[in-house]
């Protein structure tokens, strides 16, 4: 039984297709199962389609969304089985062992949930993300408490001096004006109190800032390393969907922003709030009326500042966007500089940058008009607040309600926190930014790897190198890339994958490496499903040579020993010799200790490739994967690499992808793929004899070879120049 959710005009409406032992039914129609009947499955842009045909033509066509695809495929298989059994007159066999209802993968022996499908459920990240930072703050709660107490004490200490002004005014200065001599002892006591309070506040402030900065820096560092470690565990699928710059920014800038927020803004805000509360208490204890008048304008002013800030914030956000526009022009142009120069479009790119910059200026000008008004406005509002206190204070003094000392103390107190109002109003936008940053980081942390390590990993038996691929489907987004691949690779066999680009060769290889997990079906090594072994445990047995060899920043020796950091020098040299890299390495200024840049700029493509072959050789893998290992180099270098590869292939299961079919001559079997399916299997001679897909591909290539294009040579010359810019300058 299959429930489909679209009708023939692709509107959402569900209906049922039922398969019985004798017929297939949908609604009121039914078609008896006959040998001529066939059910075929297609999909395009997220819509799947099942077609029921007989010998004369189409009988019915059903459509559904991609979520139902696994069930539909199962339905299709079930149909074929039933029909064939009908035809042969035998009863249908009962369905096989316990398998996942969704993906048909046989369930691991002692687990009820399919590890493949269970991961689909994840909850969306919550908005209270900043609170989630507590997870990182928790190890430091002792220090945080100490920091809070110190903040409390430090703030209290800063509030002592204005309090001492009161007696200084009322009991010393004003009596002196009225003709009394100055009481030196009292003055000395009050002044030393002032100094003592200042020193005390200084010491406490230092301890508080130091402790909290220490803690926040550690929280930031924990956040960064945790995020990075998590990121490294995510599957290639995740990296494929994200831009590198974005991920760099998340780990670098965002953690730093959160860090600054915690150590500066949050701390300042807490201090300010404490100060206002304490001041309010002191003021009310001295004179409740004057305290009222002093504090009433405060919320009004705070609210006005907040309004202006809010306006400014949208402007700042706009600036951020415009700014990213400017940088994106740069990010576009600089990596593509060869194209720009080749088409002589420097002027156009310069114009594009100038336009972006002009836009940036306009937005900035607009904002600056408001922004420049802001600081003076805050100043004005503060002055008005102080003025109100003056007016009411003088009025109270005139009625002998308070002394001059009290008014002086009040003025000293409020000037302190009016100054802080602006800083406090900033907390809203800063908090929002930090929360956004935290959300972006937790986005990474919440992301569950789509190639998860199983809860109870099975330990791999010693590998012989055989790989069984059973009915593998793979879907990327809503695009079906592999549709039912069945392949049994024998230990030590060399398999060549052939096909047009987009036929799914690289995807198949990625699935074998378990960079991705299959959507349906399964891949097994030594009879163990890949999803039930620990990823790292399995990858140890895989050697990978890619089209674009990646060299890490470090010495050549470190690069070769990347997969086996404890390799001895003799092992490294042996691997390099086998990869035909030894001699050119000796030509480098420091031999194996020569440094190569992030992308190995000082080495040619072929040399880099041979280093990556040595890297694969050193780990002595059972399964070797060559993904277009020779397509980025010229034919002469290819020859050199090819003989290095021959050393590598010996005694290992090898899966090679190559556009140049000549490089796959040594393959035991060639697998020809087309649009996600295997269309031909055989060695070179048999495939040539059948004159099928492979024959056509081969003929097309040999025709190209007969007409050599001069382009290849030119490109190499330019590469030389690009790779050695110092040479052209000197």
């Amino acid at each position, binding site marked *: 039984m299959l429930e489909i959710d679209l009708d023939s005009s692709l509107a959402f409406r569900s209906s049922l297709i039922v398969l019985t032992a004798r017929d297939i039914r949908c609604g009121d129609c039914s078609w008896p199962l006959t040998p001529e009947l066939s059910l075929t499955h297609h999909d395009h842009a997220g819509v799947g389609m099942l077609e029921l045909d007989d010998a004369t033509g189409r009988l019915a066509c059903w459509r559904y969304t991609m979520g139902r695809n696994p069930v539909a495929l199962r339905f299709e298989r079930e149909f074929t089985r039933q029909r064939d059994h009908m035809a042969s007159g035998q009863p249908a066999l009962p369905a096989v062992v316990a398998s996942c209802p969704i993906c048909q993968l046989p369930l691991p022996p002692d687990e009820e949930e399919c590890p493949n499908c269970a991961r689909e459920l994840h909850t969306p990240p919550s908005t209270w993300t900043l609170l989630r930072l507590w997870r990182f703050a928790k190890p430091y709660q002792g220090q945080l408490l100490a920091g809070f107490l110190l903040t409390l004490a430090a703030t209290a200490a800063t509030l002592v001096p204005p309090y001492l002004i009161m007696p200084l005014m009322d009991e010393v200065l004003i009596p002196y004006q009225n003709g009394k001599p100055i009481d030196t002892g009292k003055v000395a006591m009050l002044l030393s109190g002032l100094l003592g309070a200042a020193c005390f506040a200084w010491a406490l402030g230092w301890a508080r800032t130091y402790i909290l900065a220490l803690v926040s820096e550690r929280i930031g560092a924990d956040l960064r390393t945790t995020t990075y470690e998590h990121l490294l565990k995510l599957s290639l699928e995740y990296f494929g969907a994200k831009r590198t710059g974005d991920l760099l920014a998340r780990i670098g800038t965002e953690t730093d922003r959160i860090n600054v927020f915690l150590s500066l803004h949050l701390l300042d805000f807490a201090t300010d709030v404490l100060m206002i509360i304490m001041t309010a208490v002191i003021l009310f204890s001295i004179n409740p009326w004057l305290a009222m008048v002093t504090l009433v304008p405060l919320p009004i002013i705070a609210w006005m500042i907040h309004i202006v800030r809010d306006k400014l914030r949208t402007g700042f956000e706009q600036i951020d966007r415009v700014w990213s526009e400017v940088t994106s022009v740069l990010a576009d142009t600089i990596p593509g500089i060869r194209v720009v120069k080749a088409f002589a479009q420097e002027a156009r790119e310069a114009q594009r940058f100038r336009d972006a910059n002009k836009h940036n200026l306009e937005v900035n000008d607009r904002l600056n008009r408001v922004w420049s008004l802001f600081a003076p406005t805050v100043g004005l509002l503060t002055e008005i607040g102080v003025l109100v206190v003056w007016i009411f204070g003088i009025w109270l003094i005139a009625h002998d309600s308070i002394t001059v000392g009290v008014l002086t103390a009040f003025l000293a107190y409020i000037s302190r926190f009016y100054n802080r109002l602006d800083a406090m109003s900033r907390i809203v936008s800063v908090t929002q930014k930090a929360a956004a940053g935290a959300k972006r980081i937790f986005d990474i942390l919440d992301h569950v790897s789509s190639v998860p390590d199983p809860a109870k990993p099975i330990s791999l038996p010693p590998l012989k190198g055989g790989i069984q691929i059973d009915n593998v489907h793979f879907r990327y987004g809503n695009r079906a890339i592999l549709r039912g691949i069945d392949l049994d690779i024998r230990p030590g066999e060399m398999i060549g994958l052939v096909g047009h680009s987009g036929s799914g060769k690289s995807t198949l290889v990625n699935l074998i490496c378990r960079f991705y997990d299959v959507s349906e079906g399964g891949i097994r090594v030594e009879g163990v499903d890949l999803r039930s072994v620990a990823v790292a445990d399995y990858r140890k047995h895989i050697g990978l040579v890619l089209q674009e060899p990646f060299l890490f920043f470090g*010495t050549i020796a470190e690069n070769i020993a990347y997969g086996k950091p404890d390799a001895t020098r003799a092992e490294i040299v*042996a691997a390099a010799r086998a990869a*035909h890299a030894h001699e050119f390495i*000796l*030509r480098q*200024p420091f031999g*194996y200790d020569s*440094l190569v840049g992030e992308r190995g700029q000082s080495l040619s493509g072929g040399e880099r490739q041979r280093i990556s072959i040595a890297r694969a050789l050193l780990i002595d893998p059972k399964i070797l994967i060559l993904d277009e290992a020779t397509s980025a180099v010229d034919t002469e270098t290819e020859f050199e690499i090819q003989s290095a590869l021959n050393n590598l292939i010996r005694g290992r299961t090898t899966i090679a992808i190559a556009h140049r079919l000549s490089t796959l001559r040594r393959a035991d079997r060639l697998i020809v793929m087309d649009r996600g399916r295997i269309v031909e299997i055989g060695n070179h001679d048999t495939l040539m004899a059948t004159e099928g897909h492979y024959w056509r591909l081969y003929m097309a290539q040999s025709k190209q070879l007969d007409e050599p294009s001069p382009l290849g040579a030119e490109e190499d010359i330019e590469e030389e120049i690009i790779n050695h810019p110092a040479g052209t300058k000197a």
Partner: protein
Amino acid sequence: MSRRPIFRPFSLERNAFGRLVLVAPDGTRHENIIPVRAFALSAPETGIALMSAESKELQWIERLADLPEPAQGMIAEELAKREFTPVIRRIIAVSSFATPSTWTVDTDRGQTTLILKSEEDIRRLQETMGPGALMIADSQGIHFLIRDRTALDLLSQRILKRFL
């Protein structure tokens, strides 16, 4: 082609031009032999290759010390002539703390000046040579070595710190 050569007794000579000549056991003579250290920084005494003038490896020497004289001495002499990696003992002065900066340094080969183009030209060699080792490439491509920066005098260390 670059299969590992089996160790067989060979002999070295110097020709009239002062170049090394390798005489293989079968009597073939290879003129203009160049000895090369495979791990010039991390293990200079092990793994030395004798290369032909065409950069083909002719002989691999596992450890220089195991080689009989006079070949050992001749290779050591030739290596000493070819290698130029002055070891900095003291940084006397720098022209500015912003690059490019001209450094006056005292090396094991005497006092000299070097121009540091950018901070990136100072590379840490902790993996190959220990925690304090640095390699400084000057604008002309000469590599200066600091074996252990913590062993330098305080002034040199203070200067160096500004660039790291």
